[in-house]
C-alpha cells in the first residue's frame, strides 16, 4: 500500500465512511463531516499512523488534501 492509499484509509477511518476515495484537489467541502473539529482528529490520526508531527504552521497551510499529502511526504 503506498502512502496515498494509506492516507485514504485514514480518511475512511476518521470520517467513518468506507466509500471515501480521496484526490489531491479535494477539500473539506468534499467530505461529509470534515469540519474544524474533526480536522483535529484527522491530524492526530495522520501523525499517529506515520509517527510524525505537524507544526501549527503546517496545519494552517493545508488548503486541500494535496497540501496535506505533500507536507506528510516531506516528513517521511
Amino acid at each position, binding site marked *: 500500500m503506498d502512502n496515498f492509499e494509506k492516507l485514504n484509509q485514514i480518511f475512511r*477511518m*476518521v470520517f*467513518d*465512511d468506507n*466509500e471515501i476515495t480521496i484526490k489531491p484537489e479535494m477539500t*473539506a*467541502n*468534499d467530505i*461529509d*463531516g470534515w*469540519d*474544524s*473539529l*474533526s480536522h*483535529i*482528529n484527522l491530524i*492526530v*490520526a495522520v*501523525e*499517529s499512523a506515520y509517527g510524525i508531527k505537524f507544526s501549527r504552521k503546517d496545519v494552517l497551510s493545508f488548503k486541500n488534501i494535496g497540501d496535506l499529502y505533500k507536507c506528510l511526504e516531506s516528513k517521511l
Partner: protein
Amino acid sequence: MPIDITDNCNIGYLCTEKQCYIGNGNKIAFRWIDLNGLVKDYTFTELHTESSRFANVLKNLGYKIGDVFFTFLPKSTEQIISFLGSLKLQLVTGTLFSNFGEDALLDRLGNAEAKVIITKKSFLKKIIKIKEKLPRLEHIILVDIDDHLSESVMSYSKLMNAADITFKVEMTRPDTPSILHYTSGSTGKPKGALHAHKSILMQSKTTEDILQLLPDDVFWCTADQGWVTGTSYGIIGPWSLGISQIHYAGGYDAEAWFKMLAEQRVTVWYTAPTALRMLMREDDSFFENWDLSNLRCIFSVGEPLNPEVILWARRVLGKDIYDTWFQTETGSIMISNRPGLEIKPGSMGIPLHGIQAAIVDDDGTLLPSGVQGNLCVRPGWDSMFITYFNNEEIYRSKFKYGWYWTGDTAKIDEDGYFWFMGRSDDVINTAGHLVSPFEVESALLEISEIAESGVIGVPDEILFEKVVAFISINKNVEWTRDLELKVRLHVSNKASSIATPQEIFVIDSIPKNKSGKIMRRVLKAKYMGADLGDISTLDI
C-alpha cells in the same frame, strides 16, 4: 406590523403560499449558492410549489397531522423544501445537525418516535445501524439516489416527480405542534423542545423589530438549519415578511464568506461569535478587499459576544455588531441589542418589548441591579416551547414561582441592560452548540479501556468554551497516541464532532461525591489551577 394569521396560522403556508397571495410570488425567496459557487434562485412561487409537492409526498406515503418527520441533511435546498412541506401537512418537524453520530441520532429519533426522515446516501449507514431500535421509523427518503432502494428507502427525486404541486394547507390552529429541536442538559438524554405554529408571530416580530429587516433587504443567516437559529431566522422570520435570503452550502470560510457578503450585496448578516472571533485572526488588510457598503447591520447569537469583537468590528469593518440572546426553548430572540439602542460592549442588551425578564435568586425573589442570579422570563410569549417531547415532567420543572428558568445566570445594570454571567448547570456551550457532559461521558464509557470519565467545559478564546475530558483507564492499559485517537474518533462518530474533547487528561480516579455524582466543579478547578473549594463531600 404583525403578520396576519387570521386565514391560517400554518408556518409553511405563511412563509410560501401567503407570500404569493400578497404579491411576492415573483420575488426571490432565496439564492442558493453551492460549494462551487454555482447560484440558483428560488422565487416564493417556486418555494411554495416545491414545498407543496413535498407535502404531497408525505401525504401519499400515508403521513398525517401529528406524525414526526426529521431532516438529517447538511445545508441544502431539499432540507428547506422538505421542512416547509412537512409543516404544511402539520407534521411535527424536527431538524438534526448533520454531524450527529449514531448515538446522538438514536437518542433523538427514538425519543421523538420518528416515522420518516430525509437524509443523504452517505448518512444512511448511521441510520441503518440503529434502525432496529427505531420500530416507528417507516420511511427513509434519500436526496441523492435516482431510484427507490426498497419500500422503505426511497428516492426524493422520484417521489417528488410523482407528486402534485398543488396542496391545500388545512386550517392550522395556533397551538398545533410544529417544530421540534433537541437540546442538551447537564444530565440525562437530550430533550426535544416542541413549539407550536404560533411561534411564527414572535419570529416575525423579532425579525422586524430587532433585525429590522426591510422589504428590499438581502438577509444572510449563517446558522445551520439543524439548530433553532437556522429555522427561526434562516427560514421562518424572514420569509414570514417576504424578505429575500442567501443560503450558502458551506461552513466557515473567511474568503468565501466575505466574497458572499460583497457580491451578493448582503444588507443584514446574522452570524455567531465563534465565526467572528475566527475572522479576527485574519490580517486587517484582508478586509480591505471587499466592498461592504451594502451591509447595514451585523447581528450575533449563540454565545456571549466579548467586547473585543465589537471593538474589532468597529475598527476593521466600520460596523457595529448587535448581540442577541435566545434559546432553543424560547424559539425567538428575547433579549437583544439592536440599532437605535446604545451598545454596551459585552452586554446582552435589553428585553424585547412585551417580554418580561428578570434576575431572581433560587427562591424566586427578584434581585436588585448588579447582583448575579438566575435569568428568568415570564411565560406566555408565542414562541415559547409547549413541552419537552415525551418528557412533560422535566418541562414542568423549568417553571417555578411564575417564571421560566433559562438555566443561564446573569445580572442587570442600572440602565436595564442584561449581562450574561454563565450557566447554572454544567452544560457546555462550544461554538454556540450546547453539549451535554453526560452524553460525552457516556460515549467515553463505551470504550473498553476507560474506567471512569468526567467532562467539563473550560474557557476558550475562539469557541467560548471547549470540551475537556478527564478519564481514568483500566489497569494494565497504557495511554498512547493510538488510544487517544480511538477515544476522539469514538466520541466524534457516536455523538458528534462538536462533542469531541479538545483535551484529554488521564487521572487516577474521577472525583465523585458520596452519592456517586461526578464533581465537575472539582475537575474544573483542577484544570484552571484554582482552589478546589469545599471538598468535604468528596468520596476519597
